[in-house]
């Protein structure tokens, strides 16, 4: 179990980095901000040609079956460049389907996800729940990744009509199971409302279901959702680590050339120590991330814990680093033209999605307690 990257992983990282630098520099995000497009279709095509949407999908379903460590490396590069794409949405949907084990659904959906042509998303990670009355779904879930572009929504729903009990009691009430449904985004009764997103690289929407038809999927939905949560931790931590490094390197570069009181501001300990502190946090989180990615590939039983450690190690620290990026740049860092605020918004948004700190710490406590 090596934490260092293999030669292949380094090579793949470099090819993703090249696409990001050449095809999706931060100016691309600025273009999207003014055009209102959720992501650049050409960039998504490039990333699909590199195989990114199918990295963890088996070859029999058209994927590359390259594994979670490679996925993590790729997401790190996309995170560093704040590349807008439906990759996370599709990856979580694919992860849930793989764990669920409904073979018909896998054969129906995974090849499209793997090629990048089918935009699918998992309606999870925010707040709200849906209920299933037979194969009809009602409820509201928000915010959902790329829901406004998705053709297929995977919707977790509590099995049983709402009038049987108070909806506020949550999914576990009456011991009723959670089931995963495949919902056609264009079906009647499905309303998708794009929401103004804090982070311009994320397209998020509210999904409202009012008697919408769903296709019931076979398998252990709770396990599938649990895995999707772990995968979200790994994927977000990968993006966050990449973006945090970008913030710190950008700030360090500026601290070398910005002169105040006759010397570069990076020579002042107030600046130097803040950056050193954040870099130390980054180094530790990077090691934790490598471990989580390896666990996903090699030690599945250990993956939930390792993914929590990685996410907790980076999530709040990235917010800290992004805020420091604005602060250490001074006035220029507070302008619209500067990229600091784009990272700060990304950091705050990433930190809020798929479980806040307390929720994650409580999950970790439960896992550690169970392990003894």
């Amino acid at each position: 179990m090596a934490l260092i990257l293999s030669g292949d992983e380094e090579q793949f990282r470099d090819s993703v980095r090249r696409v990001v630098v050449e095809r999706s520099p931060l100016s691309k995000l600025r273009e999207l901000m003014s055009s209102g497009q959720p992501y650049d279709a050409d960039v998504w095509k490039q990333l699909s040609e590199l195989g990114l949407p199918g990295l963890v999908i088996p070859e029999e379903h058209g994927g590359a079956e390259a594994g979670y460590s490679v996925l993590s490396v790729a997401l790190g590069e996309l995170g560093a460049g704040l590349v807008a794409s439906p990759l996370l949405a599709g990856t979580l949907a694919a992860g849930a389907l793989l764990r669920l084990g409904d073979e018909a659904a896998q054969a129906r959906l995974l090849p499209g996800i793997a090629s990048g042509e089918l935009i699918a998303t998992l309606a999870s990670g925010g707040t709200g729940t849906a209920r299933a009355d037979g194969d009809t779904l009602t409820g509201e879930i928000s915010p959902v990744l790329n829901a406004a572009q998705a053709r297929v929504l995977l919707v977790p729903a509590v099995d049983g009509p709402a009038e049987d009990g108070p909806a506020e009691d949550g999914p576990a009430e009456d011991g009723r199971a959670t089931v995963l449904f495949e919902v056609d985004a264009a079906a009647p009764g499905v309303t998708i409302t794009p929401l103004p997103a804090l982070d311009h690289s994320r397209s998020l929407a509210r999904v409202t279901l009012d008697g919408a038809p769903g296709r019931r999927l076979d398998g252990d939905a709770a396990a599938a959702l649990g895995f999707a949560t772990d995968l979200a931790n790994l994927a977000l931590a990968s993006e966050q680590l990449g973006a945090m490094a970008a913030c710190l390197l950008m700030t360090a570069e500026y601290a070398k050339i910005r002169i105040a009181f006759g010397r570069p501001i990076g020579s002042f300990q107030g600046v130097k120590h803040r950056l050193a502190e954040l870099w130390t946090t980054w180094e530790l989180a990077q090691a934790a991330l490598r471990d989580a990615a390896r666990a996903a590939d090699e030690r599945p039983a250990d993956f939930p814990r390792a993914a929590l450690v990685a996410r907790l190690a980076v999530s709040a620290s990235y917010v800290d680093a992004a805020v420091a990026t604005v602060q250490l740049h001074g006035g220029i860092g507070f302008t619209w033209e500067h990229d600091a605020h784009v990272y700060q918004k990304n950091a705050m948004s990433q930190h809020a999605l798929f479980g806040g700190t307390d929720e994650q710490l409580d999950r970790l406590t439960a896992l550690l307690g169970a392990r003894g």
Partner: protein
Amino acid sequence: MSEQSVTDFRNRARAWLAENAPRRGAGDDESATRADLAAQKEFQAKLYDAGFAGLTWPREYGGQGLTNAEQIAFGQEARRYALPVGVFFIGLGMPGPTILELGTEEQKKRYLPKMLRGEEIWCQLFSEPAAGSDVASLTTTAVRDGDEWVLDGQKVWTSGAQYSDYGAVLARTDPTVPKHNGITMFIVDMHAPGVTVRPLKVATGATPFNEVFFDQVRLPAGSVIGEVNDGWRAAVVMLRNERVNIGTMGAPRTSPLSYHSLSSLAAKQGNGADPGLSRKLAELYVRERSVSLFGQLLREEAMSGRDPGPRGSVAKLAGAELGTYASLVAADVLGPAVAASDSEEVREVLNAALSMPGSSVAGGTNEIQRNIIGERVLGLPKDPGVDRSTPFNQLRVGTMRKN
């Protein structure tokens, strides 16, 4: 180095350790093992004779001429054991590698084999009362007298001085040039006339360190490590080794401040279910695990031929900050028992918490590590201090009160 030969080596080490080394136990305590010098010397000699000492050192100086891969394999195999070799930790980790890198042929032949075989114990004499973080401001002097030198001054925070045979000491040999340019590193015989060692009592009440006084101590010809007035370079080599040593030690599961110990203590006290406290404990777990994984990453990088370089400072800083955080969590776990308790367990936790400066100050304070990380990892410019260009004898040093 082929993978097969590393595997063979690992198997040989595993078998030897199982046969000869004491298992790690809950009650392991470095000071207790240190008391038994004779036993430690005997064990180090056994290690040496079995071919497990100085793994990466050249054969002509008593080493095994192996690679980092074997070194790491041995470390992994030895983790389950409490090897009684604590008194050699400093010599083999710092003065040893420095002599190997900068010493003369005579010095290497004379000192290294005996160091490896545990026949002679070494200490390191850098810090002074007026020169800690800024160790280049040291005022201990060595004055040339024919072929010999005469050493005068005071050192502090010297671990193991009371039982050391030799020390690597930094002294000022030219006060008329800027501070970094007038320092020389010497080998000093700790049994020589004029050397006085006194125990130094620290905040916990224990005496893990010493003060060392030099009064007209004569250093024979051939005592200089490296070049005269080039001692700063030797010191940098040695400090780099020290940081890697301190940073990658890691807190064992049995440390009173580990997640494992503190969560057990919380459960025993009945406050383990408190959500605020359990979150802090989980956060401690995250930090402890990350520091340990970072240590593993550095070791893997070293094994694949990448020098950890200044990132040893990241490990050192992270380890020290982990300890500080663990101390805060420990206080939350203990509650009012922090103020008074007759429990031995509580005293152990408090002792560990109060010992934290042992990692956050020793081997370069956290603040110095942040300078190193900022300057040598992130490439930020150095502070343009006057101390780098002013002759030492015109510089203000130490603690100065306005009167």
